[in-house]
């Protein structure tokens, strides 16, 4: 294996393991509001790197359950934090990967999620009412995992997403908002789960997505912006769903993600030379998986979870990543 393309899996595993052990670190506590998401990111990255067992299953499940907000009937990001749709999805995803869905109060969570849909069809993140097409995706993803998609008003949900579509084929956070690769991912994936890809102008969107690749090989999220590892996932997942990953240069993107690794302490950063974090580690590894990087497990780009987990639940949609390479 050529060393300049090597993904330092042992280092990244160690890095993810170390994240829960820095409890005397100020930064650890300042990011408590992201803890549930961080565990989902870490677990997903570990699964894709085939080291699911590097974090204790029991401890993880207990932590998730300790974040239950009984008043709201959903999960917060941390014990004693308020319920939010985003931390609720992460909680469901973690329990799904850990095969512990029996711990969930499916009825109450379904009720919580459905209560957040607005008359326009969009979802709010919590009872304080911020709306965003991200939350529509989160609702659709969560209900699919819970087996409760049939309770969703699909027409209304799709209608809002359709109204977020712009002339460039992309989608914005709300009606009228500029297209952004992360919003493209959430809208495309939500439509994939709902079997409504007909809403998308597929050639126009795939063109716009392919133009996100910059000479460095990295991808940006909007025209004339800088590249960033997390866009590897947002753009690539949408391209996989549209079956157009071949429209960008996979080798150059792989090099870009690999070069954003911290070769000493593990983890992947937004960009080469920057400070690593678990978010970019997960989305970097996820991107590499979709690009066919050897030795990784398949990632499902629609749910952003291990493909085997989604397949086992009968939820797989017709996406297409690049074939897994035997070696570099």
């Amino acid at each position, binding site marked *: 294996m050529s060393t300049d393309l090597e993904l330092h899996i042992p280092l990244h595993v160690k890095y993810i393991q170390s994240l829960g052990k820095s409890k*005397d*670190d*100020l930064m650890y*506590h*300042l*990011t*408590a*509001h*992201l803890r549930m998401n961080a565990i989902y990111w870490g677990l997903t990255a570990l699964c894709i790197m085939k080291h699911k067992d590097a974090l204790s299953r029991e401890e993880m499940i207990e932590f998730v359950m300790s974040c239950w907000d009984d008043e709201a009937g959903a999960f*917060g*990001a941390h014990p*004693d*934090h*308020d319920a*939010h749709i985003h931390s609720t999805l992460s909680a469901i995803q973690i329990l799904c990967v850990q095969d512990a869905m029996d711990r969930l109060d499916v009825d109450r969570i379904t009720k919580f999620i459905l209560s957040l849909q607005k008359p326009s069809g969009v979802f709010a993140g*919590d009872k*304080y*009412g*911020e709306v965003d097409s991200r939350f529509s995706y989160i609702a659709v993803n969560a209900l699919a995992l819970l087996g409760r998609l049939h309770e969703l008003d699909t027409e209304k949900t799709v209608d809002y997403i359709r109204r977020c579509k*712009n*002339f*460039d084929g992309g989608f*914005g*956070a*709300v009606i*009228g*908002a*500029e*297209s*952004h690769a992360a919003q493209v991912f959430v809208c495309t994936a939500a439509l994939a789960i709902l079997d409504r890809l007909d809403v998308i102008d597929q050639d126009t969107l*795939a*063109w*716009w997505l*392919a*133009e996100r*690749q910059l000479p460095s*090989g990295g991808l940006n999220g*909007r*025209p*004339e*912006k800088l590249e*960033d590892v997390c866009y590897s996932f947002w753009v690539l997942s949408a391209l996989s769903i549209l079956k*157009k990953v*071949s*429209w*960008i*240069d996979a080798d*150059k993107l792989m090099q870009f993600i690999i070069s954003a690794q*911290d070769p*000493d302490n593990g983890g992947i*950063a*937004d*960009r080469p*030379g*920057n*400070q*690593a*974090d678990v*978010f*970019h580690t997960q989305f970097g590894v996820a991107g590499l998986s979709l690009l066919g990087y050897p030795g990784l497990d398949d990632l499902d780009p629609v749910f952003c979870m291990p493909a085997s987990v989604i397949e086992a639940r009968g939820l797989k949609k017709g996406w297409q990543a690049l074939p897994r390479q035997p070696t570099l």
Partner: protein
Amino acid sequence: MHGVKRVQYSKEALEAKRQRDQAKLKEYLALTHDILSRKKNNDMCREAFELTTRLLRVNPEFYTVWNYRRQILEIDMIPKSSAADTNDLLAEDLNLTTALLKQHPKVYWIWNHRRWCLEHVPNGPTEEDSNGWRMANWNKELFVVEKMLEADARNFHAWNYRRYVLGTMPVRRSELSELAYTSRKIEANFSNFSAWHQRSKVLTALWESNTVDPVKSKEEEFDLVKNAMYTDPGDQSVWIYHRWLVGDGGEAALLKREINTIQELLNEQPDSKWCMESLVHYKRLLLQKHTTSFQPGEQVNLVESCIGLLQELGALDPARRQRYKESSEHITRLST
């Protein structure tokens, strides 16, 4: 985490930093604990409110604390205040978030709280002028959001908030002033696609309502875009906007005119990817929509020219060569 340079600290330096942070950490944890236990006990007193201010200044991403703050305002402080005092309370919260946004311009929770404040501005100051406070607040919001867009002209939080504020103004502003705003932003920087995007939305509204003459206004847009193309033919913002302006290609004459304009630019800038890419796009539209009006030989010429351009593009922009190859195949199929 975005844009933080990686620094390799020595073990000693890390230990020293950890020591320094210990006092801060202790204080932060005590404050968090205090607030979350008060929240659990439904403590709605003023002191709890002040504590949330302290914590949010340190960590404005702590959404649960924003929620608690709103609860105190909603359940206790606003019901106990006169309308004028409520307006002042909300003004204070807006000031707090303005200060926080300067340091954290991309934190969703801060923008949300601003929105919540606006939505709670009471009627007043008088019965006759019941929109007065709202007008003052909304105008101030536009001012703040313009400051934010001066600091970062692409901040999508700020643009989304701007559209929200404009869409909920107690007295709607004319779309013409928003058009003028996008002109200023675009003149300052042609690469600002956020401003071009906004312009496409504003013009759509202006054309639909016939506030401006759509035909004349469109021609002015073509002039503006042409100017921008010639200034920097490599800037994709302008080309994407041009694609919107041309639209679905229903008008053959328009397609042909724009093809000529771009061809002239390509003659001056023979390696311009975006000239070639756009020529292929518009020529393909001609092939798809206007074959019945073609002169003899026109179709063959268009197909050959597209295939030639796509070959050049594949060499010039190899990252996307597969797309160019598929386009070439598609266009070949169109001619048979």
